[in-house]
């Protein structure tokens, strides 16, 4: 479904992602782990076509369902974004316009990808929010982003991202701004969606616990390169690279047990 072939991303003449190779099947969950600046966010931004102005894919190709995303026009990419490929962010609350109601933006978003009336779009939005176990969808639709708690906003973000049952969900640190209980809920909801709709997920995280719990495959990244990859068993129990061992050692332990 997704083939990223030897992708290199250059920022201001400096490569931040080097020779990135990732091949995914439908329904797979892959984690990118590594410290800040390791290039993991750059990888999914490049795939989503949302690199900042100074950055561009200088080498390699990104194929989604066999078609090169790099050769698509901005309009074609816009049609893809939010419908077949969606993204959730560390703080989904910051991703919505602060001075417009969530409902207005949800409706705007739905009608961008589906020719339905405002009323139908509104109902669809409420249904998505309630599927995310957000109580009182009507009330949330009437709210502004700043009026909701971090966990609620994150679930609103996921509800939006899942509206069109995307083939691929990109999650950029989706849980790191949340408390542990909320983290667990969000992780479970993403897993749920993966099972129900067969959505593939790429999750970028520095939380090895979340990575291990969710993913079929873990890619460990450092300085823009993949240094090690494998299934969770391999990465957690038999890390080959010193860097991976260091990352594992950095996981806080509780009563002698690694919190993963």
């Amino acid at each position, binding site marked *: 479904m997704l083939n990223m072939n030897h992708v290199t991303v250059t920022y201001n003449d400096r490569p931040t992602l080097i020779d990135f190779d990732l091949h995914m099947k439908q329904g797979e969950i892959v984690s990118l782990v590594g410290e800040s600046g390791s290039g993991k966010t750059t990888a999914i931004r490049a795939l989503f076509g949302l690199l900042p102005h100074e950055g561009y894919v200088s080498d390699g190709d990104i194929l989604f369902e066999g078609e090169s995303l790099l050769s698509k026009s901005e309009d074609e990419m*816009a049609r893809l*974004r*939010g419908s077949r490929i969606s993204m959730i962010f560390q703080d989904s609350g*910051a*991703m919505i316009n602060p*001075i417009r109601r969530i409902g207005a933006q949800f409706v705007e978003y739905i009608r961008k990808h589906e020719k339905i009336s405002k009323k139908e779009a509104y109902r669809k939005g409420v249904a998505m929010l309630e599927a995310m176990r957000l109580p009182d969808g009507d009330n949330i639709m009437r709210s*502004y982003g700043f009026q909701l708690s971090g966990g609620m906003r994150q679930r609103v973000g996921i509800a939006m991202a899942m509206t069109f049952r995307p083939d691929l969900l990109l999650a950029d640190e989706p849980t790191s701004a949340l408390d542990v209980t909320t983290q667990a809920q969000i992780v479970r909801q993403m897993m749920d969606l993966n099972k129900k709709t067969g959505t593939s997920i790429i999750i970028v995280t520095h939380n090895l616990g979340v990575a291990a719990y969710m993913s079929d495959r873990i890619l460990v990244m450092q300085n823009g390169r993949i240094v090690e990859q494998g299934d969770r068993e391999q990465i957690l129990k038999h890390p080959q690279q010193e860097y991976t061992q260091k990352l594992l050692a950095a996981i806080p332990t509780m009563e002698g047990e690694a919190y993963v």
Partner: protein
Amino acid sequence: MKSKIILKRLLQMLIVLIGITFLTFLLTYLAPGDPATAMYESMGVVPTEEQLAQARANMGLDQPFLTQYGRWITGCLQGDFGTSFTKNQPVLDLLLKRLPSTFKLAVLSLAIMAVVSIPLGILSAVKQDGIADFIIRGVSFLGISLPGFLIGLLLLYFFALKLGWLKVASSNVGFEQMLLPSITLAIAMSSKYTRQVRTAVLEELHQDYVIGAKARGLKQGEILWKHVLPNAMLPLITMLGLSFGSLLGGTSVVEIIFSYPGLGILAVSAVNGRDYPLIQGFVLWIALIYMVVNLLVDISYNYIDPRIREAK
């Protein structure tokens, strides 16, 4: 905004007004020059000492300072803002007579400014570091640097003298008479505002919600018009209020150049003639209009920005 807060603001305004008028009263009192002498000079008469003393007594200037201020402010509270020394008419009438022309000029120049600077500012921001941006920034820099009187004189020279499209001076105040003064005012303002719009739009373009909107599949144009612009306009409303306030106070230089019968000319003549009541009335008006416009701006934010509405 709750009415309680508005009431509090109104009370604050009252205190500020008293402070400002007291201060100007004190300053004019301390300033050299004598209204009585000035009055006789303007009539071309050399007054005797008795005549001067008589005139001063009529003007109430023989009283102690505090009595003078007390009299003035009691008058104000009763709607009597004094009588102009030089024009022998009630100050209120003089101000009200000039107000419509100043108001029209303010509105027209703000309108021209908005029509020019909002599209140019947006263009400049969207095409950041491009040719259009470069030209707009250059021209606006020039516009800010050129003094208003120079722009006014140049416009007069070309459009009135050389081309003869408009009259140099005219006694009635129609659209034609307002055109050059308002363009003069608008040029300086547009230059300032184009840059402000550019900065505000650029800042908003870098906000996370722009990435969020892209992630939802919105196109650049939709994001710009529906999301970025409303946010970018928020900080400009305060500036707009200040500009409107300052325009309503009269624009002496431009008014003098174009012999435009606004409040600014009146104020200058009041100062020249040591016309204390008129100066006082003018200062009171400027302070009042600034505060009222600011209050309106603050109230308007409650309707425009939900974050402020919530905070109150």
